[in-house]
């Protein structure tokens, strides 16, 4: 007598799902995803994503940590919240994407990409001045990632300067030291979690 063939799915590790949920606020509700695909169908940038949000969430559940953190999907999220208002489970999808971005950034799985670099430059300006510094941010970013777009953008950029919509002046907030103390304390608390 031959034993019947049994097909057993390898039980996926849920450790990555738990990691993502722990890093997100409880208001994010990722664990409630029912895989309906409304998010990807609504998403204006889905065409440029490696995986639709639904696929990505299935991959999170399947424990495909490396693949998820290498996917461009979180970085293509526009945070337009169209998926949020259509999601039958009211999952805060852009907030899940933000968590995945911060994990990928910490792991360094997005080398050379313009998106994380833009975020990092923006954040370092906040630490330095407490405000965004548009011209410094844009100039550095274009020189580094899009030098070929510069000639085409030059006339509009010069108009921005001429019309006073972009200035070289920097505004630094008075309590920049206190702000950095707050952000440092938040970093310590984050590391302890």
């Amino acid at each position, binding site marked *: 007598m031959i034993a019947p063939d049994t097909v057993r799915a390898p039980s996926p590790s849920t450790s990555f799902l738990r990691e993502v949920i722990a*890093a997100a*606020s*409880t*208001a994010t509700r990722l664990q409630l995803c029912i895989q309906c695909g409304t998010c990807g169908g609504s998403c*204006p*940038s889905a065409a*440029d994503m490696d995986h639709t949000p639904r696929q990505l969430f299935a991959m999170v559940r399947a424990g495909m940590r490396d693949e998820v953190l290498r996917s461009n999907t979180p*970085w*293509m999220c*526009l*945070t*337009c*919240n*169209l998926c*949020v*208002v259509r999601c039958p489970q009211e999952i*805060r999808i852009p*907030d899940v994407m*933000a*968590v995945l*971005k*911060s994990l990928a*950034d910490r792991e360094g799985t997005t080398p050379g*990409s*313009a*998106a994380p670099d*833009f*975020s*990092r430059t*923006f*954040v370092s300006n*906040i630490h330095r001045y*407490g*405000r*965004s510094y*548009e011209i410094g941010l844009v100039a550095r*970013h274009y020189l580094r990632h*899009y030098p070929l*777009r510069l000639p*085409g*953008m030059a*006339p*509009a950029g010069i108009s*921005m300067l001429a*019309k*006073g*919509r972009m*200035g070289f002046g920097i505004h630094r*907030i*008075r309590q920049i030291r*206190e*702000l950095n*103390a*707050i*952000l440092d*304390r*938040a*970093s310590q*608390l*984050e590391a302890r979690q």
Partner: protein
Amino acid sequence: MSHYLYYPGCSMDGSGKAYGQSLDVVCDRLGIDLEEIDDWNCCGAFEYFAISQPRAYALVGRNLALAQQQRDGSDTLVAPCSACFLNLAKTDYTLRSDPALAGTVNAALDAGGLHYDPGSVQVRHLLEVIVREIGIDAVEGAVTQPLHGLRVAPYLGCLVTRPDYDRHWSLREHPHEFDQLLSALGADVVDFPLRTDCCGGHMTQISPDTGLELIRRLVDAADRLQADLLVTVCPMCQMNVDLYQAEMNHRFGTSYHMPILFFTQLMGLAFGAEPKQVGIGSEIVSARYALNRRHVRPFEAVAEDEPATPRRSRRSQALPMPRMPEPDEHPEVRS
């Protein structure tokens, strides 16, 4: 005099300068008194949340804590920029619903001598305050020079009505309040189906293919509806459509000329302010031709402002938008 706490955001005296200038005029005419939060910091846009959640919430939390300290008569905090508004509203909502996170944020704020009690400040977008608290009737009452004949496409963008944590809006995809406000100014408001579509946000910086296509859809839809201009409530939407329109035209081989103004600029004009007072002329895609053509205000030097080919090129390689019915096809809907 209505008194509110005010969080201007970084673009109000930078790329969105015209928004700030025109807001001054609107506040003056409607008796709105905005008290700026002292020593506020950047809300982090979408960038800080991509690096760290607790730090991003603490960054925004500092502004909420400063607002709480400054409460005096009003606990409503008004933000004119949709991204700042979203971050402030999202942080308040998330701290209200996640006490553990609120504890972390307050422990961080303590390092700067601050504290925030979630829910102690009501975060509102400027548009919501004008529509709901000042009221469309009061706006209509202040109009001295109605914008008759000016065809405007109301472009709200995504973040004012979405996710709308506390359900302040009629609808989150096709709200009608902005249309009503612009109608009250006497403008001819087109039924703009993309009113809450995304302008691409920071995609023009990190993925131009994505960003320029989203800008093309907006401009193309407004052009097909024969709008004279787009009207926005957000400095980022304004900058994307205005500053990147030339690059978008170049990319798709089109020749659109679709100006985009802030709603406060049109309000100022309708209240009788001079175009310069409300920052008209600081846009890259000039609105002068459109305003002249509709006799909203006489400008000098009309001819040189007229775009060579105001309508869309037939050489466009891009996929067409689904066609909207012409206004007279369904007169019962709206003209």
